[in-house]
């Protein structure tokens, strides 16, 4: 297939403000329900100042586990990859490709608080 130019613009141009989030002790069933009800592919898990992102893939691959005793914190290892709104989208695309992650957490450069989630679909929409 023909090559594709890197996306133009910055993270702020493609991100969608707001995010669906849950506490780390939310059950697998609750997380699955949030994904299904909001038709989103990622839920941000807030554990104090630590944020991670649980994706629909993480949830699906845990389908063998008890949905009511398995917790959100057990579904995904490691912190979310964070970016700032001014970062060029091409750089965000490189981070997604490098870490094989479909969702980046967009944080405020001053407060470090999450503003939005940037998904691969958001980036694909700018290609």
């Amino acid at each position, binding site marked *: *297939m023909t090559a594709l130019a890197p*996306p133009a613009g910055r993270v702020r141009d493609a991100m969608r403000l707001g995010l669906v989030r849950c506490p780390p002790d939310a059950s697998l*069933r*609750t997380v699955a329900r949030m994904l299904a009800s909001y038709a989103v*592919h990622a839920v941000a898990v807030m554990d104090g100042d630590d944020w991670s992102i649980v994706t629909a*893939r993480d949830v*699906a691959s845990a389908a063998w586990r008890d949905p009511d005793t398995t917790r959100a914190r057990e579904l995904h290892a490691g912190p979310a990859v964070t970016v700032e709104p001014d970062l060029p989208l091409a750089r965000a695309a490189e981070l997604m490709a490098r870490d094989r992650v479909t969702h980046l957490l967009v944080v405020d450069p001053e407060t470090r608080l999450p503003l939005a989630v940037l998904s691969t679909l958001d*980036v*694909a929409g700018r290609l």
Partner: protein
Amino acid sequence: VTAAERTAAAATTGLTAPAETPVAEAMSSEILAVATGASLGDVARTMARYGVHGVAVEGEPMGFVSDLDLVAAAADASVELPRPAVTVPADATLVQAGREMGRHGVSHLVVTGADGRPAGVVSALDVARHIAFGRPER
């Protein structure tokens, strides 16, 4: 989510738990596919227009491009697409499908029928729906 809400949701949706649900029951039997000669730009526009995270590419075997594949190709011109679709038989359970998604790092599987031909697509969100609302048959 209370037990009563769960029971009510299951009664409404009639969904069964992932371990008891064949992929055929949860999949979408429409495969959104582009022609073999389509460009990656065509794939990107198809994804954006339909709001989907993956598009199949016609051929033998069937190819697949996810939004992550597309972004990776834009970041690195040496990435070759499409890649062969990861497949799962229609009579596998959603638990097995979820395991395949985890193992291959993908969110979509092409479902193959008894004749081995593509019969649909099952996504991680389809599995999540059954985890959320599925009622065990006891």
